[in-house]
């Protein structure tokens, strides 16, 4: 689960960049779509943090 969280965070980060540069479906720059992708990436990082802390405990 920890790895999945990290992979998803990276995927959402890439999607955000692609949205902002206009290289993701639908064509054109989509600022709001990019913001949502970044928020999802951040949530995945938080998920990763929860998993890591649980492992330490």
């Amino acid at each position, binding site marked *: 689960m920890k790895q999945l969280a990290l992979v998803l965070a990276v995927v959402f980060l890439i999607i955000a960049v692609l949205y902002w540069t206009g290289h993701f479906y639908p064509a054109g720059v989509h600022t709001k779509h990019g*913001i949502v992708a970044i*928020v999802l990436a951040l*949530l995945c990082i*938080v998920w990763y*943090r929860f998993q*890591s802390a649980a492992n*330490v405990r």
Partner: protein
Amino acid sequence: MVLAVLQGVSELFPVSSLGHTVLLPALLRWHIDEGSESFLAFVVVLHLGTALALIVFYREDWVRIVRALVTTIVRGKITDDRDERTAWLLVVATIPVGVLGVLLQSPVKQLFASPLPVSAFLFFNGFVMLLGEWLRRRQHARAGHPYKRLEGLAFADGVFVGFAQALALLPGISRSGSAIVAGLLRDLRHEDAARYSFLLATPVILAAGVLEFPKLFTPAAHDVLLEACAGGVLAGVTAYASVAFLTRWFRHNDLTPFAWYCIVAGAGSFILFATKVIA
């Protein structure tokens, strides 16, 4: 100003603000260019006013929720603490509506934002609220079926409420109505379901306002900025009064009057538009 009051009231009452924004101008034969930059700027300020009213109304809750959110992230664990669970229930329920809202809002609005489908959805909104009330009564008629407190919801229940809330992308379906019905079906009391719905509304409405914030800086928006600010204040005041009224209402009452209002208004509008009494 009428639109500002309408926004402030209908955004929180379970009667669909978007539906009323489409239906009322059509019924009263107002000619509003809903795609114009000045109108969009006006709507942005109305949303910000409404969100601000919600933040002010629930200010103590929001301080505790944000603190709990930060604490859980730093600690790396969510405990059974009331505020920590509420904070994350808000996060998980906001994800579906945030993602679906950004991806689907424009196509859905283009497809359905005309008076006839909106009337049908408003009718459906009323029907769903009545059905939700009936299901809740049936569920709790069985002896020993307990009610939950908001913090007692599972995170999967939060996701369910979030998806229900996303139904409000269809103009005519109420965001607060669908979220309250979903909360009731997950064993919340009306009071808790309404509180969850209003807390959920804050990030959603605030994001809708903030994401469209650049529209306030277009030349067309500059011409209506004063009116927009007055509208925003009015929307905020009416939203505050609405949430104060509704939190008291749901202590002892249910969704039935709002459901019947939606059924009558939806059916009446549908007949008027379908028979072309109003073109």
